[in-house]
């Protein structure tokens, strides 16, 4: 009774898609609900006039939004979106077996992600100095919650990217199997996409 081994990795799947990729899509579907709930909470709080009335100091939702540094965040947003392009190039390089270019573009993504996070840290500290903390009012709570939750995702993405770079030195992703790069790419594009929604809703509207 000879049976071709591996029930999992090498066995062709019913759909022809890699199981890990299907899992990633399911996970991102779940993530959509996470961010969706948070964004809805923020929008509800924005229209909660009671919350504005009871807010401490000038930190009503509108005033809070007035504190936002649109120039800085537009710049970091641009950087984050550009990093998605670098991610695409990284995956393409790995697929063409140009491992070194792949690593280079991955590090570009890491750098851009770090710039974005740096901007966010700066913004947070500036707000705290101006007296806006999560407990100040609903705007502070919603802002730190939503932007911080996204920032945590960016940070995890950076760690993950670094791990991929590390494993590329350990000999992975050399052949046709570039799934590791693909996975982190899916995740990174998703996190970028979510930022577009957050940026539009918090900073622009």
């Amino acid at each position, binding site marked *: *009774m000879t049976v071709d081994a591996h029930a999992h990795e090498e066995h062709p799947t*019913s759909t022809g898609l890699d199981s890990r990729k*299907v899992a990633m899509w399911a996970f991102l579907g*779940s993530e959509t609900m996470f961010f969706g*709930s948070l964004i809805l*909470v923020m929008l509800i709080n924005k229209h909660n006039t009671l919350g504005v009335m009871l807010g401490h100091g000038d930190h009503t939702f509108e005033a809070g939004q007035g504190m936002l540094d649109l120039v800085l965040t537009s710049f970091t947003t641009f950087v984050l979106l550009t990093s998605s392009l670098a991610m695409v190039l990284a995956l393409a390089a790995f697929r063409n077996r140009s491992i070194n270019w792949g690593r280079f573009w991955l590090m570009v993504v890491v750098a851009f992600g770090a710039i974005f996070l740096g901007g966010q840290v700066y913004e947070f500290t500036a707000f705290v100095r101006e007296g806006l903390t999560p*407990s100040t009012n609903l705007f502070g709570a919603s802002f730190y*919650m939503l932007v911080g939750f996204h920032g945590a995702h960016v940070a995890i993405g950076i760690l993950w990217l670094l791990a991929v770079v590390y494993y590329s030195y350990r000999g992975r992703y050399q052949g046709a199997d570039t799934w590791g790069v693909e996975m982190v790419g899916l995740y990174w594009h998703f996190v970028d996409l979510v930022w577009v929604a957050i940026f539009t809703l918090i900073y622009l509207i």
Partner: protein
Amino acid sequence: MATTTVSVRPNTYAGTAWSWITTVDHKRIAVLYFVTSLAFFALGGAEALLIRLQLSRPELDLVHPDRFAELFTMHGTTMVFLALMPLSAAFFNLLVPLMIGARDVAFPRLNALSYWVYLFGGIFLNISFIAGGAPAMGWFGYAPLTATEFADTHAVDFWAFGLQILGVSSILASINFIVTIINMRAPGMTFNRMPMFVWMTLITGFLIIFAFPVITIGLVLLLFDRYLGTSFFLYQGGGDPVLWQHLFWVFGHPEVYILILPAMGIVSDVLPTFSRKPLFGYAVVAYSGAAIALVGFGVWTHHMFTVGLGPVADTAFAISTMAVAVPTGVKIFNWIATLWGGSISLRTPMLFAIGFIAMFILGGLTGVSLGSPPVDTQVQDTYYVVAHLHYVLFGGTIFGLFAGIYFWFPKMTGRMLNEGWGKVHFWLMMIGFNLAFGPQHQLGIDGMPRRIHTYGADMGWDAWNLMSTVGAWLIGLSMLIFAINAIRSLRSGRDSGPDPWDGGTLEWSMSSPPPVYNFAEVPVVDDRYPVWKEKHGGGHTGAAVAEPPAAETAHDDDEPHIHMPNPSYWPVLVAAGMVITACGLIFHQVFLLIGALIFGISLIGWIEEPPG
């Protein structure tokens, strides 16, 4: 024949405790899920019995009101998150790979992780009883009773962190089963041929990954309110307690379907077997399950008709709620049509499956009455709702799950549960159940609110309450009988052979318990009931086929060389790290550090470990 089946019983479950801790075999994980969830089921049941004892007579003083609140809070939380959902997960684990012709789930280590996170999360939640008091604000945790002002112990923190941990377990397990069902089906096992239980597992999985994030966010906001001084749910800071209700029920209503759909799947596979007839209207039953799930996301404010959201919102949600009755009704009609014209054998699994239909109808009908806001505002938060939800979740889910236990116990263990005691269990549970929850309809109509620890003798509620208590204890007795039956049958039950019920789906093609690798050869499927077709030739003749079709029986000492994934201790360590971290957020920062370290190191170990 019986002797040969004994000799081929594979030692799927042999091995040390360590082999159980490190197992990644879906069948062993199923056993772990069964044992753990039934233990928590017993715990939740014991809590219910104390609740009923306190309410048996008016103005009793057996349980202090604060303990009483802890009991009903933990009863609800335990039954939903620690008993019924994981019991369904036990069935997912046992059956999905067997039914779709796979050797295991898509991610065996992740599967082990889901289990250990669940176990530790459940223990974590119950530690609160001995660490300063259990949560006492109801399983729905309505703000602002959860605020520090009204709950200054760590009870709410245990509850919030505990649910977060359990949410992680559920989401990971669901992703795993979604991928398994989408990607690991045997050749020919199209979506259109999957057993109905697999269909319902798939839908439940999607419900979980879309519904749980909402409660997770709600709990994060709650923890922010408690730890960081925000005011998401506190009106003093501009927040709104009703926001919590929205978040909770956007999750909470789909949760009801998460609890009922697996049981519906079980019943949809039990009924055909004991009617010797395929499921009537297969496609409609599958799609109506999907329809229930979809509409289930749009009905949540029917839990909030008494908040005063205005007539327009009430109307919209009343209509969407009533719409759920259509796919639900369709399912019931299809089940009855499955029985119709069949050759019905009333074995214990069948009794429970029929009990499910009979009781669930009542729960569904009272549900329609609650969907009408003018009626709802009168009976909302009374015992009428308690009766309704128990007719759905006990009369429905628990009857359905017991149908599954009696049906697949032989497959899992290789032994039959004693049929006579099974019937005693069924009838006692049926009588006890109706005695316990039937009168509660009347109590609600007579104006008895939920969650009260006592009531005046002048309210006219005493006789119905006494009846309800007697019924509850009868249920307890029936469970005791089940437990004894299960233990005795495990030791000395009759040998089941591979196919004791003349089943139709793939799991009946292999020995009981299934060999470690499930299928020596991956089967090729060309029918919804491939095993049945093999035996009865597509179902058009009455000729019986004695030999089970699979090859395993012939090769008992010629183990096929199939590479199965290696055991791993990283899942249990990752889970431990996660829960110890949560302890750190409650007790002492030292745990935070230890937990994070264990978590981080085991995660790296996991990644470094060669898969399979």
